């Protein structure tokens, strides 16, 4: 299977702290790949490098664009998104003064009504707006959230907030999802439901997932492959069962 994302020898230093120190990994197309590691091992820093929040001190990040792999390190986060990478956060970042439906409608690129001159001419964008609204409604239906369409974010449960943050990327032709701890703060059953949805998204929308997760018992059930980071370096990788029984990984987690 060809790769969707390739991280090649990426290093990121903060003063003397080596947050990432030569990490190389590959996320294959339509993969459901896990990224684990103890606190401070560099997982979120890696996501920040991939999504353009940090420029790596060394190495490169490549992303699939039709048949080529193109360098995306050094691009701004908004440009990274335009290439098809959607990211969610450890603490979900939604737009709290907007309704659920509006949160979805913020996402699409190329909205005519976002141009200040066209925004004045309602007729020039209202047809597109209706289409996007219908698309958003279909999404909400598919994820059993339609009844919350007009709710404010503050009225949603933690699991629904995570779900909304994940599905808003589907309003665009997204290719790769970076999920940062999707199961944090969600009870066991809801977390499993979330991962079931992730699997469904992968299959139905041909998406690729790269997931940071601390709750290994849930993650390992769903992912095909796992990378383990420790002190900014790749410590281990492999199928979930191999990784979980790797003595190095156990040592890093328990810290003998």
């Amino acid at each position, binding site marked *: 299977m060809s790769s969707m994302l390739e991280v090649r020898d990426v290093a990121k230093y903060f003063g003397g702290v080596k947050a990432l120190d030569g990490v190389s990994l590959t996320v294959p197309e339509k993969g459901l790949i896990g990224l684990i590691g103890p606190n401070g091992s560099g997982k979120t820093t890696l996501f920040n490098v991939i999504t353009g929040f940090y420029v790596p001190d060394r190495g490169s990040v490549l992303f699939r664009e039709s048949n080529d792999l193109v360098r995306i390190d050094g691009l701004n986060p908004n440009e990274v998104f335009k290439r098809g990478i959607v*990211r969610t956060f450890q603490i979900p970042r939604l737009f709290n003064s907007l*309704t659920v439906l509006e949160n979805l409608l913020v996402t699409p690129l190329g909205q005519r009504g976002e141009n200040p001159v066209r925004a004045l001419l*309602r007729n020039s964008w209202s047809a597109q707006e209706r289409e996007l609204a219908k698309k958003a409604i279909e999404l909400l239906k598919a994820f059993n959230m339609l009844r919350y369409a007009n709710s404010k974010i503050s009225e949603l449960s933690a699991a629904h907030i995570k779900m909304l943050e994940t599905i808003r990327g589907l309003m665009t032709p997204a290719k790769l999802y970076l999920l940062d701890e999707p199961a944090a703060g969600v009870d066991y059953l809801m977390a499993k439901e979330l991962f079931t949805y992730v699997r469904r998204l992968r299959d139905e929308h041909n998406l690729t997932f790269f997931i940071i997760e601390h709750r290994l018992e849930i993650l390992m059930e769903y992912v095909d492959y796992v990378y383990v980071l420790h002190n900014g370096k790749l410590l281990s990788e492999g199928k979930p069962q191999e990784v979980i029984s790797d003595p190095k990984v156990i040592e890093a987690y328990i810290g003998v």
Partner: protein
Amino acid sequence: MIGFDIVGFMISWLTLFGIYAILALTLNLESGTAGITNFGKVVFYGVGAYVSATLTAYLILILNGVDVSETPPYGIRGIILLGELGNKNPLLNIGLLVLSLVIAFAVSGVLGYLLTYPILRVGPAFVGFTLLSSGELLRIFLQHYEPVGASKGLMAIPTPFGWIADSRLREVTYLGLVLGLLAVTYVVTHRLVNSPLGRTLRALRDDEIAALCLGKHVPRIKATILFIGSGVAGMAGVLLTYYLTSVNPNMFVPAVTFNVWAMIILGGFGNLKGSLLGASVITFVDRVLTFVTPQLGIAAISPDYLRWVIVGLLIVVVLLVNPRGLLPEKPIRTPAVDVILEEFRGESK
């Protein structure tokens, strides 16, 4: 209340209200909806006022064959000539109004864009302070720049309707112009807020990082909004110049900016009707104090100080009762609302 001129009061209040409401509406778009801390509203207002004053004074003299290098408009001779030559040609006066509006919009707008584009990446407090200090820089510059009259400013600026003989009719015509521009500003800001652009602006006010991760070019969007808001504020400055027929640097102190902030806080952050309400209340207080105190013969309390006490008190009371202002922000009205309502109606059938 002997000799209280109620019609004169209304005209004066409504004209001032119109000018300030334009400022409040645009500030509400910038700060209330888009979350940009614009503490430099007065910069763009002042630039607009000076653009029209300079343009009008110089062009009137030049077009009447006066050599401005000999008799500049800020000298005594120039001021007298402006009074003599100012209202001879109605077409010229109105032409200068239109020209001033266009140039003030362009200059203030471009200044708004250039001043903010480099600093919008830093935090909101820095944006606020940079714009605040820009205002003071501009004021100090104007105080020392001779061609615009330095600290004395420009006086006896011919007005667009100066050729109308009857003073009341002239004032009412001008009021019509001000309210007309206010109406246009309201329609424009209302449409911008209730559009996908307005939704994106609220989104980046709520969470800039998330908006960035959804592909929004945050600095460019904000600078564009400041282009629009500052350009329109420049037009409000034009209206002020022709209303007062003079400009001087001390009219453009930071207090002007905070007066407009008081209006949108009082009226409701993010609510455009609230801005109109806030502007009307605060300009009313201002006019009442200016009109009434001299008539009552109270010399002990200056209306200038009392104004700030009253405005401050009003804000405290309103915010205690309703922290979101008199009129809270409304949901955005786009066709998406109709689509979801149709959907819900279809389901319940």
